[in-house]
């Protein structure tokens, strides 16, 4: 028996969620006295691939084939299913990111394996296989029990972290036979901004309090000096002040960074739904009654146009002192 974990690589490197996934799989496998096999998609150099061993994988299948180039969820599902069979896996782990969302549900239906998406912590396996997940956009947590023989978990990225174990992995190429895809990838357009928001550890976000798109320079500068991604509230995206992929909240994307700085955002419940899982929240707002302060760890009451440039200077000073 084994625990299989889905890992993605791009540009020669394993994605961050991959190491976290192996960590998640290792904990699960230890509870079940199983071993961890990772299935890696995408191009990664040999050293990167075998480094998964340091996180607890004993075997790595490096999936190869042009069929994966079109990013067809069906092709990935068939390949993972082939690996499940080869490895006799009874638990399969995915990150709950776009890839996990595309593939894990298909695999669940294919293998009749119960799926829990958005797991917040490791499963418990004695007295039923149970996993805690977010529900109601972070306003509650549910304990879900998987009642099928095979089980799939899609874990929330940045929830358990990546931890090194000791060990090493054997690596083999894996070329399962997968049907040709009908989906064609025509183009990949890079979005502006260096750090993709869903993966960012630090996020600087701003709302209608900024008054207009012409006032975003200090927000962007703060993001730049921190090495953070930028985000915004829904009305800001709707008014096209900012690109809509920056829209966070119940109807935008949900994020879980280590630090979320909210500037001129009131903290409506639909906004909080997308950011309330952040580890630390800083709120900058000139209204002491803004609901966001109730959800914040640190608050600064005052005019963002005064405060943000000061914060930029303070961060610069701090960064300089660190070098």
């Amino acid at each position: 028996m084994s625990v299989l974990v889905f890992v993605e690589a791009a540009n020669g490197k394993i994605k961050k969620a991959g190491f976290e996934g192996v960590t998640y799989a290792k904990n699960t496998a230890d509870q079940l006295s199983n071993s961890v096999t990772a299935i890696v998609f995408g191009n990664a150099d040999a050293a990167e691939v075998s480094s998964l061993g340091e996180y607890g994988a004993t075997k790595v299948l490096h999936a190869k084939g042009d069929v994966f180039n079109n990013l067809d969820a069906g092709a990935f599902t068939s390949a993972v299913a082939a690996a499940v069979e080869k490895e006799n896996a009874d638990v399969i782990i995915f990150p709950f990111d776009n890839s996990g969302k595309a593939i894990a549900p298909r695999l669940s239906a294919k293998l009749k394996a119960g799926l829990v998406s958005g797991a917040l912590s490791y499963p418990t396996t004695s007295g039923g296989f149970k996993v805690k997940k977010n529900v109601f956009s972070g306003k509650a947590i549910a304990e879900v029990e998987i009642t099928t023989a095979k089980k799939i978990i899609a874990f929330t990225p940045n929830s358990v972290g990546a931890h090194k174990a000791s060990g090493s992995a054997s690596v083999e190429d894996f070329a399962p036979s997968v049907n040709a895809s009908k989906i064609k990838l025509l183009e990949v357009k890079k979005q502006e901004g260096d750090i993709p928001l869903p993966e960012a550890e630090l996020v600087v976000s701003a709302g209608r309090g900024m008054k207009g798109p012409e006032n975003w320079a200090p927000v962007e500068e703060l993001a730049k000096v921190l090495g953070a991604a930028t985000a915004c509230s829904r009305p800001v995206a709707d008014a096209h002040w900012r690109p809509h992929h920056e829209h966070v909240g119940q109807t935008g994307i949900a994020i879980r960074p280590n630090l979320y700085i909210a500037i001129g955002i009131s903290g409506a419940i639909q906004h909080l739904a997308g950011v309330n899982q952040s580890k630390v929240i800083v709120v900058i707002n000139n209204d002491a009654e803004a609901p966001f302060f109730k959800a914040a760890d640190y608050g600064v009451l005052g005019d963002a146009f005064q405060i943000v440039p000061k914060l930029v200077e303070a961060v610069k000073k701090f960064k300089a002192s660190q070098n």
Partner: protein
Amino acid sequence: MNILVCISQVPDTTSKIAFTDGNTKFDTNGVQYIVNPSDEWYALVRALELKEGGGGIVTIITVGNADVDPVIRKALAIGADDAVRINSDAKDSYYVAAQIAEYAKTKSFDLIITGNQTIDFNNAEVGGMIAELIGWDYITPCNKLEVNGNVCKIESEVAGSTRVLEAPTPLVISAAKGMAEARIPNMRGIMAARTKPITVVEPAAVSPQVKINVFELPPAKAGVKMIDPENMDELVKLLHTEAKVI
């Protein structure tokens, strides 16, 4: 285009979240229900736009008991042609997907559109499961959709980039922000919705695969620490030494 739009009833976004029966059941007391925002704003409205542009029929489907009829009427008021209700509680995602797949197999839809995620269980599961169960391709998230004959051109935003994809129908897609703009039903739509048919179909025998044992509320925040706006060095110091996030 013959389009099936999957809609889910969810508590209004401002609902108070509480539980009863030893935290095993969602407390529905005083809760208002709405159509899940991505189902309504993006999936349904884009389907209607495609129909308006090129003809066809837009059918909505939901798995739920008779309590969900008011929400079905709302979706009909926005402009769906007809509605199907699979007469059962939504036991889990697999159960829901299997019911919808069973129904879809008996018809000839070109496109099945789901929302990308419900705001109650946040699963993002049903669309992919339907696709697997009926053997169609699946694209998620779908932020833009154009249809030309039987070819769909889709923009899908994933971390840091936008993928432009082309896929033939039949296809399952999950709709997200950008696909369309929300529509408010007008009086004519609301009147028309009253007489549109809701076809009630009895569920197929399907075993759910997961069950919720118990709910809990997340741990409360310790409370906000206010920082002097003149002293941003202090904030940076706390973020470094106390919060340890920079």
